[in-house]
């Protein structure tokens, strides 16, 4: 059974922004909303590290537990999705998420926050429904990872991407480095 995950290989990320733009142009994410962002720590100093932060589709997702409307759910293949019809924009999921994945528009019907939006593993675009009111579902093929310039952001079945990362980690250990440090 496939379990879809992300694995950001921070040793490779150079903050080129390819993932951010790929996500926007594929999922029609509006200006100001960032389903994926690259965050830099120790900018300009030794130890500088770039981390592509997207929804990690957690195994035991805190956002699901925090949501008072049960608007967030997890598919069998691991992908965590929010139902924008049920979402009331309370923002509890944002408090709960350790990665800052939930995003809110500045305006909306129910509150100043609007409906929560987040990475859907490219399964759903920003506007969840098509013109006939039917919910859109696409193949899980995250463009952020496909477009990653250095193949830093790995996406796919957890076993497979772990194997790739393990390989890289082994090479790095051999070279005397601590991977991801």
């Amino acid at each position: 059974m496939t379990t879809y995950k992300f694995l950001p290989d921070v040793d490779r990320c150079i903050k080129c922004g390819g993932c951010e733009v790929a996500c926007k142009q594929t999922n029609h994410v509006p200006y100001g909303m960032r389903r994926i962002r690259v965050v830099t720590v120790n900018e300009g100093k030794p130890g500088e590290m770039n981390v592509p932060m997207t929804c990690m589709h957690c195994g035991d997702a805190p956002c699901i537990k925090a949501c008072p409307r049960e608007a967030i759910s997890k598919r069998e293949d691991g992908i965590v999705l929010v139902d924008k019809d049920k979402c009331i924009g309370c923002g509890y999921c944002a408090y709960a998420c350790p990665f800052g994945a939930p995003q809110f528009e500045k305006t909306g019907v129910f509150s100043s926050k609007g409906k929560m939006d987040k990475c859907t593993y490219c399964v759903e675009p920003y506007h969840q429904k098509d013109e006939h009111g039917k919910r859109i579902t696409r193949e899980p093929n995250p463009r952020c990872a496909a477009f990653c310039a250095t193949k830093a952001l790995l996406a796919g079945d957890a076993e497979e991407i772990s194997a790739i990362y393990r390989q890289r980690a082994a090479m790095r250990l051999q070279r005397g480095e601590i991977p991801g440090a």
Partner: protein
Amino acid sequence: MAIELESTFSDVKMSRRTFAKATAALGAVAALGSGYASATEFTNKLIETAEAAPAPTVKMVKTICSHCAVGCGALGRVEDGELVRMEPWTDHPINAGGMCSKGGSIAEMVNSERRLKYPVKKTGGKWVRISWDEALTEIANKLKDVRSKYGPDSVMWMGSAKMTNEECYLFRKFAAFWGTNNVDHQARICHSTTVAGLANTWGFGAQTNNVNDLRHTKCFFFCGSNAAEAHPCSMQHILEAKDRGAKIVVADPRFTRTAGKADLFVRFRPGTTISLLMGICNVIVNNNWHDKTFINNRTIGFEDFWEVCKDLTPEVVEDITWAPADKIRQIARILYENKPSTVVWAMGQTQHTVGTNNIHMSAILNLILGHAAQSGGGCQPFRGHDNVQGATDMCILSHSLPSYYGLSEKAWRHWCGVWGVDYDWMLSRFENKELMGKNGFTVARWYEGVIKPESEIDQPHNLKVVFVWGHSLNSITEMKKMKEAMEKIDLIVSVDPHSTIATSLADRPDGIIALPASTVFEKEGTCTTTGRQFQWRFKVVEPKYDSRPDMEIMLELANKLGFSAEFTKNFSQYPEDVLREMNNGMRVIGMIGQTPERIKRQMENSATFTNRDTLRAEGGPCKGEYWGLPWPCWTDTHCGTPILYDSSKPVSDGGHDFRAKWGTAVPENKYNKHVGDSLLRADNPVAQSGYAYDMTGAAIDEYLAAGNPPTGRAKARIWAWNLPDPVPIPREPIESPRPDLIDKYPTYDDAPKFYRVMTEYKTFQQARRNLVDRYPIILTTGRQVEHMGGGAETRSCPYLVELQPEMYVEINPALAADIGVKHWDMVWVETLRGRCKVRAYVTERVNEKTAFMPYHWAGIFEGESYADRYPEGTAEMALGDSCNIICVDGYDRTTQMQETKACLCKVYKA
């Protein structure tokens, strides 16, 4: 027949038989108004019936990104004739689907509503739309007019690194047919010093390997390159190499994003590259780490080099460069212990008064280690624009004809033969034979041709017309002088998909015509990567709005100027026949075997190039070929030469050697040194054949059969007698913070009549010897990953603007504290040329003596927005002050490359 009507309207204003009322009220005005519909100037037909309209299709079109020279493949998803988004081309051998933010925004840029849609002309202070025919006729008439009064040299043709190869070639040919050498492009201000430095060392001035081959490198020495931001997808291979055990050393004035991946980072003072590399070489030689066998067999001039290098010990160099002596020693050791090492650079080395020297020095470092001319080694100048390597090879350069033949009579006769025109006819197109053989103006200083009096320029008259053809103007320094020139010149013609500052920088009421050019995604043709690889772009969509491909514009202009028949003699199928003419004529670099059929076949069969380490197709229709058929590709069955000068393979398998460009022995020279010494490789001497002028190909066949490259097997010149400095010596930048070092390592003497204009060196440096008292901070410039070139395209793209919305100057927290400024406050950055008002980006990337500004910004001039010369409503487009207003007026001594990497400034609160 009476019609019963019912009213079912909820709107209280409406009532039954409204339609009758409406008809009565509006009938008259409608009848009059409809009469206007047939009175049109530009369009007649809007609609066509489509009985058998094909059902809308979805197709994926293979194309190449239009930004940097890595040459990433991308798929354009086209629905019903519209490019809706980009998709990853996962089996492309170079990038395997990866793209940076710029590449991901391609669909955005092609569909941008900010594109120039129609030809427009500025007249009476306003912009007016005109038809293509009217525009080209007016331009042609003006050209004929200035030609008759002032001669053909009164026109400056600024061409483009962003056209296809075929268009670049036609552009250079066009300037020749027009009759001037005042034709140049972005390479001048980008890697012209690389070409001069490397070609003068070992024969060709291009990247020796390719980005995939870097997977075999054991040690990267980034000196003047921020590849993580300027060439993001190259890092895919570099970091793969790092995983395989390679070391990364970064020497840079800034702790860049590339430095963030380094094992060793060394900060050094902008403009002191030669000293730094000399210090490293000093350690190498003193430790006997240099490869004596390689040096003896394959180089000449090591002793002359050591004469200079021996005194530049790490301690001496530390004082010059800021780099600590022990770090210099460490770099030398790492390079030596991790073979093969490679030197990687870009603008950080090229854009200096000593740019050519810097590059020569990098090659020397690589040579004395014996790491040159092999897989994983060599020198990697990462080229800039998507097709600047191609445009350079086509020599849209004021000092050469295509393929680096130069401007001698022999070169002209060669090309006249290829073009099928009489040499005397070509001569008649020029003002005189002297000007036909004389270097023209460069894009770095073309404006001097307008504003200097005629007595001070090296041609009969001033420039009267300038074509800004796919060239941004804010990447050129001295923007104040450029603005002055643009306000004085008779006519500016801008050819670009966007209107750029060519239309707005000058404050003038008329004399500007802007023509909308199509992007590369709206036409077909080849482009060349930084690794000399050829790729074919298929047409993604039809030209948008009323834009036209550059080639069409050139052909029509040639027609109006009356030389169309001669110009297009060999062409019936476009662009393929243009490429065939190139294959026939561009023999110096062996651009012979890259035929349209072979390149297209490779693109279609990209999936068969599975070995990303070698880039050689091991099976399938392209079996044996290297991806892109990198030049030299000697025949139409040759596999291409992926690694220059690499003699470990047979030539028929892509092997090569140093080029015997200067003959078999050192000629008489002004230093009276080495005269008669052999220039050929000691262990396998082979002279260069006459391949470059042999139109039959027999010379090539003969050499290939003997297993030799037609360019011979020579020694690389560590001592190059024709360069201003045969061996690099340290020279301070024009504006230096160390008066004592200015005295010890002064710059060049002034150069009169240098590309037609006086170029000052010593005069300026002496006058500014103590400038550091008033302007204590070193200003250096560079790139941001989100923006490209002059920025007209990328700053109009919402995704990229969201990532990088504002212009800024990077300053160190200590400097910020000194001047009382917090992060993101507005500050002025001032030099002798002027000042820019920008945000302060407080960061430790730079030290307290340095400031850094990205150069992609325009729309604001010394704090004043000139958006008022645009209509309002453009506030969303990201504007910023241009750092090239304030950079120094210094130029490389060989190529007139601008020195944007080192000048003096001061920063203060706004």
